[in-house]
């Protein structure tokens, strides 16, 4: 027990306040931009931002230094597509704010008030090196889920980095089910909603949308205006090749749509079209089963093949324990590296695999200048690991978010500590905290 506490304290390095200049030296530095790791590099951080990172970085006078020799220093992991902070216990409906089956609203819903910065999942995933996440609502009664946000995983109540960062819509099998039973219905619903939003934009005061049988109410119409005008991205969940092409074709009628696709299990079969249309993709990394008929061509080579074809691509967690296990991101990225050694398969290089969980999702969300890499000027989301961050044997030693050191404890680590030894004791476990 005592031994463990000492160990935990050692991992919590005493770092200076965020405003001061900090130099992390000697570690293997990962920039996160797709380049390969830099041994013996330095990362300089000041005022919550990255000043410099790499080899031959000079340490500013007066900087406090942390020796990271033998460790790895990387940007924080960006959860490419998650439901983080929306759920405490999935099956306890009161704690699950992913979707709103009985709401009057759909596109107008906003995840901001639903995100709980103190959710146990935030602490657990922070300890896994996750510092930012794309948080999307789910759908239940309609094809539109609502407006998602970009969050940080800092141990404070200020989680929202960018509210209403995108709109989320289902247009595959699930969208068909939501719209009434077919893709014909989901695409009709989608086109109608965007047309109504344009009507609303031209004359908000004159827009109806108040009656219960209205095709799109005012709240939902207002939320879709920036989508149809292209100022807010539209994240579309599709898996199948035909759906991917159908979604790309929507831009013929709605040319300003800023499309981002998620899921995309069959993306590799239409990779050239995705690349030509310049539509970015946040894909599931390892799905290789025909889990549904819309995923018959699923393969672990999907991301690698899309990347090779020139598609802008990142790793997301859609339908994959998206509320609780964003920490799988590093394992998934590592598996894509492993694929490179399997004949016939297509993976990613190490640098690309890390970028797929750091700068690439950030860039797809339009935040590449802010987060996801250790390039100068980015927010100082920095993780120090005790080994290769994609390797299963590695653990997180230090997490900085905006230059602020974060606690790595959670109710899971507290439970572990309580039960590490269960010898006879003077008082029950409940007194050990």
């Amino acid at each position, binding site marked *: 027990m005592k031994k463990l506490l000492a160990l935990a304290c050692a991992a919590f390095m005493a770092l200076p306040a965020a405003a001061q200049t900090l130099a992390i030296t000697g570690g293997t530095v990962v920039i996160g931009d797709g380049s390969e790791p830099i041994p013996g590099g330095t990362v300089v951080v000041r005022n919550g931002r990255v000043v410099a990172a790499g080899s031959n970085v000079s340490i500013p006078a007066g900087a406090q230094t942390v020796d990271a020799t033998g460790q790895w220093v990387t940007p924080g992991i960006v959860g490419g597509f998650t439901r983080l902070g929306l759920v405490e216990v999935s099956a306890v409906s009161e704690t699950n704010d992913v979707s709103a089956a009985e709401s009057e609203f759909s596109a107008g819903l906003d995840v901001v008030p639903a995100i709980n910065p103190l959710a146990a999942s935030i602490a657990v995933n922070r300890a896994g090196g996750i510092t930012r996440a794309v948080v999307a609502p789910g759908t239940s009664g309609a094809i539109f889920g609502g407006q998602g946000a970009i969050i940080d995983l800092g141990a404070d109540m200020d989680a929202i980095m960018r509210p209403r960062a995108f709109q989320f819509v289902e247009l595959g099998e699930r969208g068909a089910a939501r719209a009434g039973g077919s893709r014909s219905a989901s695409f009709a619903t989608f086109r109608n909603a965007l047309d109504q939003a344009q009507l609303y934009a031209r004359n908000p005061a004159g827009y109806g949308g108040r009656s219960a049988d209205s095709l799109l109410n005012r709240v939902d119409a207002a939320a879709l205006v920036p989508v149809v005008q292209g100022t807010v991205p539209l994240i579309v969940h599709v898996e199948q090749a035909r759906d991917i092409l159908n979604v790309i074709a929507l831009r013929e009628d709605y040319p300003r749509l800023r499309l981002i696709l998620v899921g995309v299990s069959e993306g590799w079969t239409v990779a050239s079209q995705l690349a030509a249309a310049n539509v970015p993709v946040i894909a599931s990394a390892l799905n290789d089963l025909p889990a549904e008929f819309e995923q018959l*061509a699923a393969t672990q080579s999907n991301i690698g093949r899309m990347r090779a074809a020139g598609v802008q691509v990142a790793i997301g967690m859609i339908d994959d324990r998206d509320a609780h296990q964003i920490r799988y991101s590093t394992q998934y990225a590592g598996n894509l590296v492993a*694929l490179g050694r399997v004949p016939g398969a297509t993976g990613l290089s190490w640098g690309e695999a890390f970028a797929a969980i750091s700068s690439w999702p950030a860039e797809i969300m339009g935040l590449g200048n802010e987060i996801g890499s250790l390039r100068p000027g980015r927010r100082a989301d920095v993780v120090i690991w005790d080994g290769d961050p994609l390797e299963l044997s590695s653990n997180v030693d230090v997490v900085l978010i905006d230059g602020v050191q974060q606690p790595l404890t959670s109710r899971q680590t507290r439970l572990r500590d309580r039960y590490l030894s269960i010898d006879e004791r003077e008082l029950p476990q409940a007194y050990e905290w």
Partner: protein
Amino acid sequence: MMKPAFLLAAVLALFGCATTGSQSASNSTAAQERDTVSAFDPDPFPSTYRPYPGRPTVIQGATIYDGEGGRIDNGMVYFADGRIQAVAQTLEVPAGATVVDGTGLWVTPGIIDIHSHLGNYPTPSVAAHQDGNEITGNNTANVWTEHSVWPQDPGFSRALANGGVTTLNILPGSANLFGGRSVTLRNVPARTMQAMKFPDAPYGLKMACGENPKRVYGGRNQTPGSRMANIAVARQAWIDAQRYQRQWENYRENGGTPPARNLRHETLAGVMAGEILVHNHCYRADEMAIMMDMAEEFGYSISTFQHAVEAYKIPDLLRENGVCSAMWADWWGFKMEAYDTVNENIPMVHNGGACAIVHSDDENQIQRLNQEAAKALADGRRAGIDISDAEAWQWLSINPARALGIDDQTGSLVNGKRADLVLWNGDPFSVYTRPQMVWIDGALLYDMNNPELRPISDFELGQPSEGSVR
């Protein structure tokens, strides 16, 4: 009791293969012996599995984990006739043996997943494929999940090629207090379930405690609607099965009219007789303790707690009762009884002297059980629990083999056991490693470097997925 022998002959005629024979012959003799005392066929769906032909093979230069905690660096394994012949630092290569250069590679026993729904919840996961739960009554000990298994599930080949899984236990679902019988399968492509069935593996009984049964039946205003009714209904079932058991004992001793058969009671009686192994879905420590007391009350044993998320709270009780815990490395938060997960659960159970097993219950994680073990191992070490890699491999092979009653056949690289092996293209606890070759009973059924040695199920043939797996 001609049927098994007849079936075997028919299968042999069909394939025109030579037979080793001994296994199958002893099967039918045993069945005949049971037949005379039980007045019915206890094995009406017998295994027709036969090992595929293999070549005498030596793997040399590899790091070997024997599955029982042993490790040999730069060692050699020799297998022939479907069995492990020798494992040592150095061996003389027998004449004619195929030599596989394992320099820089690792050899382990094949992985055994003690909790899988491949076949009974196959992909595609359409409603027509939902065959894992008979949600029509709180006690369905009469159903045998082998009758749900679809051998064409594409998940089997993914578990083989990506996961090195050579044996799996298919469990019926946890909606009911008694979910039915499980079946242990060899992970070989086959046309029928019987052709995958592990010869002579004991049956298991799936039991469940906690949220699932009370949610399913309570939601219908039926019993059990609470944890207390979970236990009450289960105890009554044991009491009824005891009466049935006595009726048969009386018949065997004194003759007369045989009692009417009851498939529910039959399974439970088989458990009390020690012939059927209990796989008890149970998350919480307090509930596991209650289940162990109930087992004590009715004189049966629990083989494993499946999903034992809170096993780390009671390793002493588990050790004393000799119950294994089959666990995920880190799943949590999906239901209330899965809220108290710790990443160190598996190493903490192992460290407490109890039997620890890594299980999947998932068609994706079954492809990476070695990685799940590796994560748990790393977290355990961080917490000061030092377990070697070789020791940790027990979680993936010999411990599940014991819990399935097949450890005399597989689960470790010991002379005479079935030659179920994986050659990994690197450290099997590294994320960068994949199975390079997988043998089942000495037959090479997957070779990373040979695209023709990758099975494609009937379902995938002619589909877009056919191209995706090559």
